[in-house]
């Protein structure tokens, strides 16, 4: 990845000054041009060709930005149905990277990238990090999972493009993280917010004071829902500014939206995406300020452009101007989901995955309840499940069952939940759709 930042004026607030400071009119003109290119390019994908045919649409029908609404939505299920390469708009030989969702229900979703996609993705991340004040003189430690999870390589490439010394520390091993932070003079860290809380605990145990013993000044946090209070707490704990990051592998990964220094909503880069907020029931647009489902259309993706992709994230538009000089739409932090997906420690989990595992144990009844909580170590999941039959008169036998269930769940969802066996009939029975998930994490207060 080329170090582009080193060639730039460090005093300039913008990494891509021309596009970041476009007026609304200029943004929309650029969007229309790129939308038409994207729609045309989508006709190289068998999936979108048949979508357009079914809808009786041709690329020429898209003449204004409002015409976007003629195009049918794309869903995660579409990506599963066309697994692995069915939505690709370029031949595979042009692709250089593949990422995949963490979910293991049915087919995962596969996202392909050309080399230009990777470069544009890195540019978005670099733009974000520059926006909050990072420069090639900074040292960036990426304490995010690498591998299929886009938070690893996504931030790595972006931070390198900005020109920072970038440490691929990856997730976990807090003592080593702290040693790196001290020894390398790390000034910025990217991590899920719950991990930073954990890191501070270990610092406390080790007698490390981040204000005295480190050069930390900026955090990029994202990939799991968190509240404003949680962010402020992290900032106070470390004496560091923490900026909210939004990304999703379907769009590329991190980089799609990021807070500026105002910390008043995430700028979504409208030269790269068209942002819509729709009512998840009627799928009609909602006015600015009202909460709805975020729908994104990619404008520069080459390998796998997506039109009107339903993210299932609930949020709202905060504004289309900002004291920072950027007119790219400001989007509120994510307020929840319009489906039942849970996001824990950066892992996407659907209740059906949990249910599938529980049903494999004949000792267990079909009633269960998932409770999500936050403590100082981050997010926790408790799975309560009713016993079908008391198959043992022995406490150890019950403990062994709980452990087996816990292991099987970990293999499925990659996190270790606390498994609690409960008596038959003791969980709340609801009429119709059972309440399976209770989210007590502070973000949903």
């Amino acid at each position: 990845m080329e170090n582009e930042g080193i060639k730039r004026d460090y005093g300039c607030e913008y990494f891509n000054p021309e596009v970041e400071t476009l007026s609304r009119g200029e943004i929309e003109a650029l969007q229309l041009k790129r939308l038409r290119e994207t729609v045309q390019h989508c006709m190289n994908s068998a999936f979108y060709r048949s979508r357009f045919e079914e809808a009786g649409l041709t690329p020429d029908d898209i003449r204004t930005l409002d015409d976007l609404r003629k195009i049918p939505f794309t869903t995660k299920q579409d990506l599963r149905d066309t697994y692995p390469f069915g939505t690709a708009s370029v031949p595979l030989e042009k692709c250089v990277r593949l990422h995949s969702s963490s979910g293991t229900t049915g087919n995962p979703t596969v996202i392909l990238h050309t080399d230009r996609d990777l470069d544009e993705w890195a540019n978005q991340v670099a733009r974000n990090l520059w926006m909050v004040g990072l420069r090639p003189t900074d040292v960036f430690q990426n304490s995010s999972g690498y591998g299929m999870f886009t938070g690893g390589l996504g931030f790595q490439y972006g931070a390198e493009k900005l020109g920072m010394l970038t440490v691929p520390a990856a997730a976990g091993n807090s003592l080593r993280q702290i040693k790196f932070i001290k020894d390398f003079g790390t000034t910025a860290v990217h991590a899920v917010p719950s991990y930073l809380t954990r890191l501070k605990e270990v610092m406390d145990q080790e007698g490390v004071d981040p204000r005295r013993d480190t050069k930390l000044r900026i955090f990029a946090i994202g990939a799991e829902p968190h509240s404003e209070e949680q962010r402020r707490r992290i900032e106070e704990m470390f004496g560091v500014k923490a900026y909210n990051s939004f990304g999703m592998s379907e769009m590329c990964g991190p980089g799609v939206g990021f807070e500026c220094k105002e910390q008043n909503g995430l700028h979504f880069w409208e030269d790269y995406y068209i942002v819509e907020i729709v009512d998840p029931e009627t799928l009609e647009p909602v006015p600015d300020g009202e909460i709805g489902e975020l729908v994104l259309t990619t404008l520069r993706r080459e390998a796998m452009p997506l039109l009107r992709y339903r993210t299932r994230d609930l949020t709202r538009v905060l504004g289309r101007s900002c004291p920072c000089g950027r007119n790219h739409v400001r989007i509120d932090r994510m307020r929840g989901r319009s489906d039942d997906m849970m996001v824990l420690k950066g892992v996407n989990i659907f209740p059906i995955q949990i249910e599938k595992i529980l049903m494999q144990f004949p000792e267990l009844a079909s009633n269960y309840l998932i409770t999500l909580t936050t403590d100082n170590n981050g997010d926790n999941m408790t799975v309560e499940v009713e016993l079908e039959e008391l198959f043992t008169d022995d406490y150890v036998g019950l403990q062994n069952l709980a452990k087996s269930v816990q292991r099987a769940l970990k293999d499925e969802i990659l996190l270790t939940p606390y498994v609690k066996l409960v008596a038959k009939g003791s969980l709340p029975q609801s009429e119709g759709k059972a309440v399976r998930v209770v989210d007590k994490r502070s973000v949903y207060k």
Partner: protein
Amino acid sequence: MTLKQLSIFLENRGGTLVRVLDLLSQAGIQIIASSVADTQDYGIYRVLCDDPQKAYDILRESAINVQLSDVIAISIDDTPGSAARAVKALSDAGVGIRYLYSFLWKGRGVLAFRADSGDRACEVISTAGITCLTSF
């Protein structure tokens, strides 16, 4: 040479024990001995009573997680050292005890327990000439 014992799954929250005791009392069941160990989320309430089959049926009808199992109950003198001698016989023979509770019944001591090998435990008891309770 065993007794039928009820094992009842009890969640560690208010009212669960009362519910079971109420059901047994309404059915006119007499509890002879019972025991519950402390645990984090849940415990197993073990009960010896005058009519275990009836008690089991009643609890099942009320959708309570219950199991009917066999437990060895040996009768010993109500004197210092009797329990030690009985347990030593099992221990010397390499029979482990998973749980045990004791009570007085008609002037004699009773040790009710689950051995890791029930058959081996019975053998040892017979050889040692220890009396077992098989009903109340």
